[in-house]
């Protein structure tokens, strides 16, 4: 058991090193994680609160990224906000993928009426633009927290995983080894978990990255519109405040540019990892690029 695990970990490690896309993506994501973990050791995160420093100061030795009009140290805001964004994305991604994978497994394995209900629900939900629902929900929720937001977004990020997993299970169900398992008298639960599950894990992992990235995108969209958590400094809310106080035309570039750069690093990192995973799942894409 441990030997298999070690062998697999070693294989995964060497695959990562051979795939520059995956390596670069992971390095970008790890750097953001480190920023959030090690940042508080070097910077006073209390200065991320409003009116804790002199407002609207350009970058200086004391405040490397300057301060905003609300009297927040931008560097401290970034260090506090980045892990919040990651946490929101991961939480929504996990819930979305677990929900989606379970529904996909049920629909694909059992078929029939169960499949019809789940598939119709999936297709219906896919038609509804998530931002529209999110806005109506967010407008009705009195106080928004990072967890609230993650749950709301997660409830709208299970559809793509459900669809891809269902399609895969549909073809796996007819594989000879599944028939063998059934003939050998295994019950449905054991077949699903022991025979089918291991074969959809790479796909589930790929959809996890996709769902996380989509969740962060939706979350940032909500925040930029001012519907995010009001009390926690997050990257999207920082852009919202900067917009609200016309930071752009006042030339306060150090207020809105750092969160945008962090977000670009985050999205590019997720994009590279998910592209590398797609290539792993679908080797035909590896031919070019």
């Amino acid at each position: 058991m441990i030997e298999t695990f070690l062998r697999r970990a070693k294989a995964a490690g060497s695959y990562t090193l051979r795939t520059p896309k995956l390596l670069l993506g992971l390095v970008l994501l790890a750097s953001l994680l480190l920023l959030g973990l090690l940042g508080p050791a070097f910077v006073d995160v209390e200065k991320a609160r409003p009116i804790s420093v002199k407002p609207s100061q350009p970058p200086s030795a004391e405040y490397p990224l300057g301060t905003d009009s609300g009297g927040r140290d931008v560097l401290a805001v970034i260090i506090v906000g980045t892990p919040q964004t990651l946490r929101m994305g991961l939480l929504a991604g996990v819930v979305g993928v677990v929900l989606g994978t379970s529904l996909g497994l049920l629909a694909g394995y059992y078929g029939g009426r169960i499949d019809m209900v789940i598939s119709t629900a999936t297709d219906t939900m896919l038609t509804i633009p998530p931002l529209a629902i999110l806005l109506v929900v967010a407008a009705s929720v009195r106080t928004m927290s990072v967890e609230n937001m993650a749950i709301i977004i997660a409830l709208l990020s299970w559809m793509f995983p459900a669809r891809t997993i269902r399609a895969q299970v549909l073809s796996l169900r007819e594989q000879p080894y599944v028939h063998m398992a059934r003939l050998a008298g295994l019950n449905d639960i054991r077949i699903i978990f022991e025979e089918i599950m291991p074969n959809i894990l790479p796909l589930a992992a790929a959809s996890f990255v996709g769902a996380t990235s989509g969740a962060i995108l939706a979350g940032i969209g909500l925040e930029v519109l001012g519907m995010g958590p009001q009390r926690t400094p997050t990257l999207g809310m920082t852009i919202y405040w900067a917009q609200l106080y016309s930071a752009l035309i006042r030339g306060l570039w150090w207020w809105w540019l750092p969160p945008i750069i962090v977000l670009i690093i985050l999205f590019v990192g997720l994009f590279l990892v998910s592209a590398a995973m797609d290539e792993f799942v679908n080797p035909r894409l590896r031919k070019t690029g």
Partner: protein
Amino acid sequence: MNYFVRRLIMFFVVVILAATLNFIIPRLAPGDPIGAVLEELRARGASTGGDAEDEIVAAYRARFGLDQPVYMQYLRFLTNTLRFDLGHSISYYPQKVEAALFRALPWTVGLLAISTLMSFAFGSFFGALMAWPRAPAAVNRFLPFFMVLSAVPYYLLGLILVYLFAFVLRLLPLGGAYSSGTIPRLELSFLLDVIRHGILPALSILLTSVGFWALGMRGTMVTVLGEDYLTLAEAKGLSGRRIFFAYAMRNALLPQVTSLAIALGTVASGSVLVEVVFNYPGIGWLLYNALRSSDYYMVQGVTFFLVLTVAVSVLVVDLIYPLLDPRIER
């Protein structure tokens, strides 16, 4: 069940579901609208309690139909919504929500439809070239740049573009759809003004979405290039250009067209953030302002409209697709 019938039923389910969510979600929220009005009256020094208050409450409840049972309220809401009677704006009272929507729509459609079509054309062509073995090597060199850009949300890139071109270099306007003070009318100078204002938002959409189309096109193109009829076309001695356009690209474009139709349908909902960044007076800007002023009828109306446009375009695609591609068997 017949495919078309099934598809139509699904469309109506989506529309009714969207309307129902619009009805339920605000009612789940704590507090009630009449209480909010009373609160406001008290803040202005109205006396509390007494018969007068009960009378006011009763009058308001009757006025908005809140004295009726919930299922009656729901039915009335549903019929009104399906007749596209979306109620009145609260912030700009007697204005109707649908009137505001139709005034904002041309700006959104103009800006986003044009930039979506442009990025579709560029992206599909480059994506096809990327998969083509005989394409110039330069193509593959600058495409990773677009791929990376496609991961960046367009409104974030938009902010950077506004700062560079409008604030620092002062080449283009900061935002809006036309210069303030001009009256919208059909003449050349106004048209040029609109185009000048459209360049930056269109550019931010174009730069971030070309990669998406290129990626999709490359994927289908790789599949098409492996088909037997391409080998046959080559064996027949057809020119590379002919094989590329008439055999490979034409077949690979089919799934792209589906995505294009859906992308055009999501134009309205995709517009929200870009219009906020550029102060562009379209649907997204309308929604943003409605949210900020808690104009719930407007928010509900706009979101219902967004769902409707997506549902209609997905329906159209699904109905037309079997006609376009007879190989698809439902």
